[in-house]
């Protein structure tokens, strides 16, 4: 196995993820500003940013911290917001075959929605574990750097970026750019449509549990569509 396969994988992973990573920037800026408006000092804000490293969990728990909610409620909310990562972790786990446990912890800590969606397919297909590790870690470390840098800018820019610029819409566009190529396959499209409709129908559920139900419904719908599709081909 060539020693450079890690770097080859890293280069390819970085190239695949770079355009999508732009979506992290508004999230990081918004999160940095939100932590300051919750009343954190810059040191506390960056402390949370480094320890947690998760936009959804950070933005989701800030209002609770702000009103002095009990610690257990804050932690349960964070867990609910992060349940999707159990699904992602299980889906990508096979991509870490042949890789040691400490590295797996490091990789697990860095798992994000964008990197998962971008890297999953090749992580499962490619044989060379060094190539796979590079392909996963390059976008992950890049995400970490972007997240910390732009949250820091957000922390210090809090108050001077006009809210009506709606920078957070760039994050929505980034998520869509991940979704569009996936949805070209019929069962994936079915999964996305069912999940999206369920999420809208259940938007009133507490702790964003509707999101988790929607993901499960989408997975089941996609799986069912795959079976019907296969049956249709066989006949």
């Amino acid at each position, binding site marked *: 196995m060539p020693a450079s396969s890690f770097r080859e994988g890293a280069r390819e992973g970085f190239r695949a993820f770079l*355009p999508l990573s732009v979506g992290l920037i508004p999230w990081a800026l918004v999160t940095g500003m939100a932590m300051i408006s919750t009343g*954190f000092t810059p040191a*506390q804000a960056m*402390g949370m940013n480094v*320890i*947690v*490293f998760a936009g959804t*969990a950070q933005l989701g728990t800030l209002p609770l*911290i702000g009103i002095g909610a009990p*610690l257990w409620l*804050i*932690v349960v909310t*964070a*867990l609910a917001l*992060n349940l*999707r*990562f*159990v699904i*992602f*972790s*299980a*889906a990508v*786990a096979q991509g*870490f075959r042949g890789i040691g*446990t400490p590295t*797996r*912890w490091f990789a*697990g*800590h860095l798992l994000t*929605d964008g990197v998962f969606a971008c890297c999953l397919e090749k992580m499962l297909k490619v044989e060379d574990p060094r190539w796979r590790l590079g392909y996963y870690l390059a976008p992950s470390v890049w995400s970490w750097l972007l997240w910390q840098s732009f949250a820091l800018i957000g922390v210090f820019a809090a108050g001077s970026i006009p809210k009506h610029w*709606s920078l957070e819409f760039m994050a*929505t*566009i*980034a*998520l*869509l750019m*991940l*979704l*569009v190529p*996936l949805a070209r396959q019929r069962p*994936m499209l079915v*999964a*996305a*449509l069912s*999940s*999206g409709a369920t*999420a*809208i129908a259940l*938007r*009133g559920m507490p702790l964003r549990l509707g*999101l988790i139900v*929607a*993901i499960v419904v*989408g*997975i*089941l*719908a*996609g*799986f069912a569509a*795959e079976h019907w599709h296969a049956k249709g081909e066989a006949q």
Partner: protein
Amino acid sequence: MSAEAGLWLSFILIGLATTLPRASFIVLGNRVRLPSVVQRALRYAPAAALAAIVAPDVLVVGADFAPLNPKLAGVVAAVAAATFSRNPWLPFIAGMTVLLGLRAMGG
């Protein structure tokens, strides 16, 4: 416990509540194998999760289902840009331009 210490404790616990779900199956790896049916079903997780996050964001305004809004127009522009061009930045430019343009016009 001081308020400062309580805050840092909450950061650490939120951090654990994030890293443990993320690392769960990546670390357990071969010790816990999911059945292959479950693994195949999980291939639909990214599309389902992305749609579940994006759909309410784009189609719900306040608490109401309101599909005809500037965000949807921005999304249509971004998807069109992604379909007809290979430039990776164009969807962001198109989507933001349409959204801010419509908002400026009072749409």
